[in-house]
């Protein structure tokens, strides 16, 4: 066990030595990998922020229940009881008299309304649901419409739906970007490791001739790829955080002007860990493929 550990430690040290042996090349690779990972990460962060923004905007996601004209006090009480029982969120009752009064207050409407034989407006409930996911809103509206004496249900979430579809599209774009750039990272590592193998052809040959196993030869190369990927991930985290620091004040100012308290969300420590780990795994993968393809040719 400790021999196993010592061998891995030696391989890691070897990989570090190789990284440090060509500092300019290493730095260049890290920047390239960092930039590669920056784009999908920034995209993901933007989507996360937009999602949070829609969660913050209130009052736009309402469901209006219009009762039938013949509905009486008892029907209203029944609806009220159901709303309370189902715990759908907050709601407000707008009686037909209130609605008429409000309409009369509107300019130019008073005369028209005076000419009507009776109040044409129904009683209504305006519900602000607690659960604002579009699919929940839809199913809620659907169930409302089956309640007794409910004549019409209006869901004011058309723009929310549109926005949600847009978010979903954005997420898909970010996912595709992620896959594309993951492939790029694997490719970059693949070629760095290929160069490493070529540069060390003599050393690899000698090591094999005097009893090195495949694992002994491959291990430092795997570590090199994983290390480069991990550091590249950290580099990306640095770039994204720098962009965040530049944008945050401007966004805060904008939010203040609109009277909301929205604050831009940056990369959390957990995100940085995931990003570096992803870089490490992809780097290892690129190194693994390169090793499998190029080491065989050498002997």
């Amino acid at each position, binding site marked *: 066990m400790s*021999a196993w550990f*010592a*061998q891995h430690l*030696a391989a890691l040290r070897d990989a570090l030595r190789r990284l440090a042996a060509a500092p300019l090349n290493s730095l260049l690779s890290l920047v390239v990998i960092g930039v590669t990972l920056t784009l999908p990460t920034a995209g993901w962060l933007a989507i996360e922020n937009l999602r949070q923004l829609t969660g913050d905007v209130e009052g736009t996601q309402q469901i209006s229940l219009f009762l039938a004209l013949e509905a009486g006090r008892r029907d209203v009480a029944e609806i009220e009881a159901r709303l309370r029982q189902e715990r759908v969120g907050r709601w407000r009752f707008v009686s037909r008299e209130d609605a008429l009064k409000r309409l009369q207050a509107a300019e130019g409407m008073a005369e028209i309304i005076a000419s009507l034989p009776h109040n044409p407006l129904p009683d209504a409930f305006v519900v602000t649901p607690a659960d604002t996911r579009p699919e929940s809103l839809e199913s809620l509206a659907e169930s409302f419409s089956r309640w007794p004496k409910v004549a019409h249900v209006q869901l004011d979430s058309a723009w929310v739906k549109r926005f949600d579809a847009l978010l979903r599209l954005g997420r898909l774009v970010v996912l595709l970007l992620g896959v594309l750039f993951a492939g790029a990272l694997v490719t970059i590592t693949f070629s760095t490791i290929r160069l490493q193998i070529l540069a060390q052809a*003599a*050393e690899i*040959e*000698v*090591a*094999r*001739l*005097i*009893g*090195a*196993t495949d694992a*002994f030869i491959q291990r430092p190369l795997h570590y090199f790829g994983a290390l480069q990927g991990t550091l590249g991930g950290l580099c990306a985290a640095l770039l994204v955080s720098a962009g965040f620091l530049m944008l945050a004040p401007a966004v805060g100012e904008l939010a203040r002007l609109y009277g909301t308290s929205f604050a831009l969300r940056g990369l959390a420590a957990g995100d940085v860990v995931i990003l570096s780990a992803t870089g490490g795994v992809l780097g290892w993968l690129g190194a693994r493929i390169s090793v499998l393809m190029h080491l065989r040719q050498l002997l």
Partner: protein
Amino acid sequence: MIVAEALTKRYPEGREALRNVSFTISAGEMVLLTGHSGAGKSTLFRLLAAIERPTAGSIVINGQNLTALSRKAVPYLRRKLGLIFQDRKLLFDRTVLDNVLLPLAIVGHPPKEALRRAQAALAKVGLPNREKTFPIALSGGEQQRLAIARAVVNRPAIILADEPTANLDAGSAREILEIFVAFQQVGVTVLIATHDPVSLPIVQARTLRLDKGEMSEPGSEQALATR
């Protein structure tokens, strides 16, 4: 102990480099493998180190049959052999010390123990105080000492040396041979391939002679001039 039986090696594009070669080398023996250039000495060396596989015949080293050896087992066989290559195969971008540390790293010795062993090996071949030097700064004889130090640092029971004194002046050649003799005297089996046995001022050794891929007098014993 090395037992070779009816060894034949035919290179894909060439004629037979070895034909029906049989011999036995006992543990602790010193053997000279002689023959003109092109006789098949290096081919035999590569067969013994499992760098090449024989076309026919078998090799058994210390009870291990090389012809039945799996690819995975080859490295472990080579670790038991001290190999000195005709072209030395030193790493010129590594220091003298790092060259000797390589076999120890391969076996997986802890750093302190490895350093101690490497220094001991360098002292044994007469290369002390050159640890930080690069091989390019060494003379031909010193480079050969380094190659020997790297070969023996894992204390192999068998040393195989391919033309270890080629391109060395008589004095250096003599010193190199004395190193091999010292190893043989502590029980190591030594096989030295050379195209020029006359220039070897060797003490006592059996000679195996290869002639155009065939062993002329298999197993013939021949004491060379005592110095």
